[in-house]
C-alpha cells in the first residue's frame, strides 16, 4: 500500500541517522510531518494571506491595483446595502445555529439516555444523512417547497388552502429550514461525543442526593455536555454565515445572505478586494460573536 511505501522510504532515510531511539524518532517524525506542513503552508496559509492582503487593495477599471487602503472595509461598514445584508446574514445564521443546536441536542440526548439499545444504528443513519449531499438537498427542498411543490399540492388537494403558499420558498424561513436540514447531522456529532463523557453514575448520584430530573440535567449533564454544544453551535454558525448556495437557490430577497454577494465579487464582477474585505469582515464578526457567547455561557453553565 502507498502508506507502506511512504513509511518504508521514511525509515530507510532515517536509518542513516543516529541509532539512539529518541533522536531517530524525532527525525522520523519531522520527515513524516514535512509533506503536510508544506502542503498547508502553500495551499492554506499562503492563499489566506494573499486574500487578506487583497482586502486592502483596490480595483480600477477591472484591474487589481496594489494601492493600500482600508476603503473596502469602511465601505462595507457604512454602505447601507452591505450593512443590511450583513445584518440579515447574522440574524439568519444565529437563528439557524440556535434551532440546529436545540434539535441536535434533543436528538443526541434521546439517543444517549432513552434509546440506548439503538444508539449505534441511529448514529449510523445520522452519518448517512450527513453524507447524502449538499447541493442535491437544497435543490430538493426547492421541489418540495415551491408553488408546484409537494407541500403546496398536498395542502390544496386536501383543501386547507386554495392558493399555493408562496412564502414557503424564496424566503428567510426557507433559507433557515434548508440550512438547518443540512446542519443538524453535522451538529449531532460533537454533542453526542460530549454526552458519551457523562457517566450514568454521576447523574444517578445527583438524583440520589435529592436533585430533581431537571436539576440533575442542569447541574450535571449540561455542564459536561456544554463543550460539545458550543462546538456544534460554532460549526453551524460559521457554515450558515458563509453559505452562498442556499440563499441563491431558496433564499429569495428576504433570505439574501452575504455569502452570495461575496461569491459574486469573484465572478463576472471583478471586485476582488471588496469580496475579500466582506469575507474577512464576516469572519471577524462571526468569531467575535462566538467569543462573546463563549465567555457569557461559561459563566452561566458552571
Amino acid at each position, binding site marked *: 500500500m502507498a502508506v507502506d511505501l511512504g513509511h518504508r522510504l521514511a525509515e530507510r532515510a532515517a536509518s542513516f541517522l543516529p541509532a539512539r531511539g529518541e533522536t531517530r524518532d524525532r527525525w522520523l517524525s519531522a520527515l513524516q510531518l514535512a509533506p503536510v506542513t508544506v502542503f498547508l503552508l502553500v495551499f492554506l496559509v499562503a492563499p489566506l494571506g494573499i486574500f487578506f492582503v487583497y482586502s486592502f487593495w483596490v480595483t480600477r477599471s477591472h484591474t487589481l491595483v496594489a494601492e493600500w487602503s482600508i476603503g473596502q472595509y469602511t465601505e462595507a461598514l457604512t454602505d447601507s446595502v452591505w450593512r443590511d445584508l450583513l445584518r440579515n446574514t447574522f440574524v439568519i445564521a444565529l437563528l439557524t445555529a440556535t434551532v440546529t443546536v436545540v434539535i441536535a441536542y434533543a436528538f443526541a440526548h434521546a439517543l444517549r439516555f432513552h434509546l440506548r439499545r439503538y444508539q449505534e444504528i441511529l448514529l449510523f443513519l445520522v452519518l448517512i444523512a450527513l453524507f447524502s449531499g449538499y447541493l442535491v438537498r437544497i435543490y430538493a427542498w426547492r421541489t418540495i417547497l415551491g408553488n408546484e411543490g409537494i407541500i403546496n*399540492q398536498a395542502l390544496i388537494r386536501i383543501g386547507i388552502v386554495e392558493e399555493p403558499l408562496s412564502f414557503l420558498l424564496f424566503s428567510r424561513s426557507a433559507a433557515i429550514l434548508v440550512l438547518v436540514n443540512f446542519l443538524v447531522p453535522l451538529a449531532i456529532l460533537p454533542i453526542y461525543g460530549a454526552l458519551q463523557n457523562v457517566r450514568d453514575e454521576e447523574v444517578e448520584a445527583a438524583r440520589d442526593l435529592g436533585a430533581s430530573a431537571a436539576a440533575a440535567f442542569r447541574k450535571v449533564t449540561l455542564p459536561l455536555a456544554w463543550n460539545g454544544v458550543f462546538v456544534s453551535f460554532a460549526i453551524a454558525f460559521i457554515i450558515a454565515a458563509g453559505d452562498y448556495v442556499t440563499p441563491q437557490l431558496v433564499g429569495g430577497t428576504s433570505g439574501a445572505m452575504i455569502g452570495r454577494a461575496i461569491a459574486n465579487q469573484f465572478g463576472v464582477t471583478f471586485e*476582488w478586494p471588496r469580496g*475579500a474585505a466582506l*469575507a474577512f469582515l464576516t469572519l471577524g464578526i462571526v468569531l467575535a460573536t462566538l467569543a462573546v457567547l463563549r465567555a457569557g455561557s461559561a459563566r452561566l453553565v458552571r
Partner: protein
Amino acid sequence: MTRAKTVSALFVGLVLAFLFTPVVVVVLFSFNAAASTSLPLEALSFRWYEAAFSNPLFRDALRNSVYVASITALTVAVIGANASFALTRRPSRLLNLFSSFVVTPLVVPGLFLGVALLVFYDRVDFRRSLTTVIIGHVLITLPFVVLIVNARLMRLDRSIEEAARDLGATPFQTFRKIIFPLVRPALLGSILIAVAWSFDEFIVTFFTIGGEITLPIMIWGMLRRGIDPSVNAIASVILVTTTLATVVAARLLSARGFIP
C-alpha cells in the same frame, strides 16, 4: 420510563424523517416516468437514468468526479497517515498544537477557502484544472483522516509495540506486522469518508475548477438553466456513491475496529 422512551422514539423518528425527506424526494422523482415534480407518481421508469448515461457531458463529469475522488483519497492517505503517525509518536505540546493546525481547514468556511485559492492561483499564475480541484479536496478532507487515525493510534496500547520489539521485530517489522494492521480499518474508513465528501463537494470546487466539470458542477449548471428532470437521476447517482462509501466507512470505524 417508557413514556420518555416513546416520546424520544417519536422525536427521533421525526428528525430522521426531516433529514431524509429531500433524499427520498430526489430518488423518488428520479424514477418518475412523467417530467413533472408532482405527486402522485403515475408510472416508474428509468428514462432519466438512460438520458443521463447517454449524455456525454454526464459521462465526462462522472469520470472526472471519480478521478478527483481517487487522487484525493490517495494523496490524503499518504500525507495524512504519515502526519498522524508523527503526531502520536510521543506526546508533546508542540505536536498538539500542530494537530490543531492541521484541523484548521475545517474551521474556515468553504466559500473562503474556494475564493482564497482562486485568488492564489491567479497570483502565482497556476492554471485552474482538475488538479487545483484535487488540492482543494485534499485540504478539506485531510483533517478527517488525521483526526480519525490519530484517535485510533492514541487508543493503541503502547506495550503491544514494545512486545513486538522485545520478541525480535525491527521497527519496520513492528510497523508492518503489528501497528499497520491495527490502524488499517481506521485509515480505510477515513479515506472512504474523504471519497464521499469529495464526490459531493461543490462549494470549493466551484471556484477552483477550470474548464472541466464534475457531477456537482454539472448539477449546478442544470439548476441554473431550468427544469431538466434528469437532474434527479444524476443526483441519485451521487447519492448512491456517497451512501455506499459511508456505509462501508461506518462499518470499518465501528467499535470492532477500535479494540486496542
